[in-house]
């Protein structure tokens, strides 16, 4: 047995040697007038696509900031984006975060990490390393841990649950002139859909004066949507909440609604989350079927972002600008503002600047102001309502951010 251990030891020794060489601090080769900003997002695996879009947003913003003269308080220092892949598991995200704080000691701030559970793992590391992190993740837990170095730019999940129905009520009233009264729910029985439907049934609907007239739960995959849509036609609800997880189910229901003459916004159909408004969905569902479908999301490209949308299209061939792009774009500008306020490229100073800043109305995140509360949540963060119109999901509400009039039945 003694001899067998030898190859192992050699391998470990080799590993050690590699590790040792890599540990030697790198010489500071870059010009001092450069500020390193981390972007830790999924670039490989299941979530590579949203990660890639976040990267586009980040790159565009850094180019714009640098072209406009960089960080003036630092003598026009340029921002430099340091990309890190957080992969598709919590362990990989933690590893990437550890790599970021260990390997990039001159990083002053970062934006991370798309999925809530990744952001949680990443910020456990960055909190201990005292590196400030901006995130678009929703989970309330992120800013419920008493952390000092994480800043949530979107409304949290709990806040979104409270906001979305009143927002839709307001939208309905402004579009049709009267408040909706009846609601139908079609949901599949997967975890997150059930959670959303449950919250509505157990209070949210009543709080908003809505009457549940139809409540159907199905198990994916759906084989025939006819009975469901027949019921919808019979009860004629003012709002239909449709919460599918599997795209094929969504397709089936939308096709059936089209067949029954209920599509094109004739029955306002509402989903939650970003999945139904991602460009990928067009690979499966014809845009004409999606016409009129509404979703509430934490952020979206809105009025005033037209040039950005155009640039994203020409530079990256992205058909429209989702939350992932615009939010990351906004993060870079927020970082620039914090650097201006801090006056030095130092992570503690940037964190302090983010905690104390009051940057006025938000330009790239919906609603509220560029200010964070004690927990690190952006003050008065709102949501956007997005509707499929002519093959593109566009912001239709709140009105000051709307890029188009809502398609809504005027009864």
């Amino acid at each position, binding site marked *: 047995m003694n001899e067998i251990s030898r190859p192992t030891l050699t391998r470990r020794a080799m590993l050690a040697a590699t590790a040792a060489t890599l540990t030697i601090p790198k010489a500071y080769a870059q010009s001092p007038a450069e500020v390193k900003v981390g972007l830790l997002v999924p670039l490989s695996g299941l979530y590579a696509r949203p990660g890639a879009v976040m990267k586009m947003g980040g790159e565009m913003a850094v180019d714009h900031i640098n072209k406009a003269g960089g960080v003036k308080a630092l003598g026009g220092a340029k921002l430099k984006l340091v990309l890190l892949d957080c992969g598709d598991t919590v362990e990989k995200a933690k590893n990437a975060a550890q790599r970021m704080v260990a390997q990039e000691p001159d990083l002053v701030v970062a934006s991370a990490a798309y999925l809530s559970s990744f952001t*949680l793992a990443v910020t456990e590391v960055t909190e201990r390393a005292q590196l400030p992190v901006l995130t678009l993740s929703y989970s309330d837990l992120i800013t419920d841990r008493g952390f000092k170095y994480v800043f949530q730019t979107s409304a949290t999940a709990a806040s979104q649950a409270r906001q979305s129905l009143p927002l839709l009520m307001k939208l309905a009233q402004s579009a049709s002139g009267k408040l909706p009264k009846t609601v139908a729910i079609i949901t599949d029985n997967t975890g997150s859909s059930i959670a959303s439907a449950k919250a509505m049934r157990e209070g949210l609907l009543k709080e908003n004066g809505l009457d549940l007239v139809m409540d159907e739960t199905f198990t994916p995959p759906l084989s025939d949507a006819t009975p469901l849509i027949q019921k919808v036609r019979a009860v004629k609800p003012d709002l239909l909440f449709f919460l599918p997880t599997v795209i094929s189910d969504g397709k089936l229901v939308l096709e059936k609604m089209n067949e029954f003459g209920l599509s094109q916004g004739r029955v306002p159909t509402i989903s939650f989350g970003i999945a139904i408004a991602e460009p990928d969905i067009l690979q499966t569902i014809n845009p004409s079927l999606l016409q009129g479908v509404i979703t509430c999301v934490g952020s979206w490209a809105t009025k005033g972002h037209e040039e950005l949308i155009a640039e994203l299209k020409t530079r990256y061939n992205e058909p429209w600008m989702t939350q992932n792009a615009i939010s990351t774009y906004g993060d870079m500008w927020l970082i620039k503002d914090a650097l201006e306020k801090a006056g030095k490229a130092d992570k503690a100073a940037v964190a302090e600047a983010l905690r104390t800043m009051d940057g006025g109305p938000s330009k790239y995140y919906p609603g509220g102001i560029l200010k964070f509360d004690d927990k690190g949540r952006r003050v008065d963060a709102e949501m956007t309502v997005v509707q499929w119109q002519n093959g593109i999901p566009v912001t239709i509400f709140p009105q000051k951010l709307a890029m188009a009039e809502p398609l809504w039945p005027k009864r």
Partner: protein
Amino acid sequence: MPMLLRSLAPTLIAALIYACLALFVTNSYYQLTLTLVLVWASFGLSWNLLSGYTGLISFGHAAFFGLGAYTTALGQIYFDITPWLLIPAAAVIGGVAGLLVGFPTFRLRGHYFALAMLAYPLALLYVFEWLGYQELTLPIKRDNPFAYMQFSDPRVYTLVALVMLLMIVAITRAVERSRFGMALVAIKQNEAAAEAAGIDTLTWKLRSIALSGAIAGAVGAFYAVVLLVVTPQSVFGMLVSAQALTVSMFGGVGSVWGPLIGAAVLIPVAEILNAELSARLPGIQGVIFGVAIIIVILVAPEGVFWKVRDRWIKRRAAAVPAPVAEPASAPHVIPFVAPAKPATRPDWRDGKILLSVRGLSKSFGGLKAVQDVGFEIREGMILGIIGPNGAGKTTLFNLLNGFSLPNAGGIWLDGVNMVGRKPHELCQAGVGRTFQVMRPFARMSVRDNVRVGAYVRAANEEEARTFADDAVARVGLTAVAGKVAAELTTKELRLMELARALAGKPRLLLLDETLAGLGHGEAEEVVVVVQRLAREGVTIAIIEHTMQSMVRLVDRFLVLDHGAVLADGDPASVTRNPRVIEAYLGKKWVNRAQA
């Protein structure tokens, strides 16, 4: 114990070097990798303890791992208990879960077992999502971090993990060297043979899964401490179970070094690939990693450890000049004419009835394999059970030692009805057997193969070794006792099987076509051994379909045809019995024989 310590020495040296390495690495990222290597090595060892040694592949070890992780997370969040206590608690939970999982699942074999195991973590994943534990984080302890395992110096994590790994290695080693390990390896190589050798396979498997689950639980609990975030996907996910399989299979299954080698290579390589390539060519790291694993599996299908070991042994064997000729290890080459039975052998007719069979019947659907068979075996006799192919001999044997249940009739051993007892219970009661199709434990040495059979009588390891050596000597295999079973000839395998049955000191030995597949001279050698055993007072029942070599060997014949007793008597009368001749040779031979 000193043996155990000596076996741990290489591990301790490796651990010492690893600890030194960890102390000099100040980069927190490399340190995290060093910690994770140990975590996955420990998890691989846990998997190895069940699947590596018993051969029952578990695709569901994440179940225990995840329960451990959630124990730490929930225990700290809701009860503010420190992980120092929660890790042992997680081990208990993992162990209990192992028993709960094992009890129903061990009814299944092979692929069915593997697939059933897959279901447990998947089910738990949804249960924990449904319970609302989609995302848990271990609360940060700014005041007293050490008490909650939140070390500010990342090196401490590595050292704690190292201590844990050493404990697991010590446990694995202790198991490996005891009858526990022998039982597991025996089950892996051949579950039926293990049962026949007196091993209570279900009990040992349950012990193994409980221990394995306990270790996995503790490792999962520590993993939660390292990651600080627990989600159902990250601890119950398919990738977690797969990680245990990957490191073990890469390194070598069924050895303590396998998972260590696997983790020490794969985890850093994956991480280095991630670090170096993922930002530039996202996804390429997975491709390279996958291809590398495929190549290694193709080159070393049993894992790196076994490949290296086999090659090393071969090289050493080549260095030592091969023995000039076969030593006279086959001294039993005897003239064709068998010697007369020695006068010293007591007359079996005086022996008391050891085994009594009455009205035994067994049918498979419409086929009546054994019908109303009855006979007696007296102490000291050699009973030959013969009959043409398909006469029901092997079915009768399987009924005799509990591998299948009769439809009617009874089997009395010393006056006790044994119907319904499991094979290992019959073995304990003194019935040993060999198999028609040989069932050696191929990777084990002859001596170890035989030792497996000794535990049923031996009080301790020492005695088991003595019994085994004694049995090996009795069949004349002492010269090859150190060889692994895979290198033996058919004759040697037959004799080894005989020795394995003998090691359990059986009072009745059932030999199933022990002479099948042997050349003429070889058969004679085995016959001599059997005769010698009979002389030593072992009662033997032997099945054959050829009468020739049996005539000189047995005291009494039981002839079966179409499942029923055709004749029962001493060799001389049976060989002249017209019905026997007819069954074997056809009608016209009857006339000729009588002529």
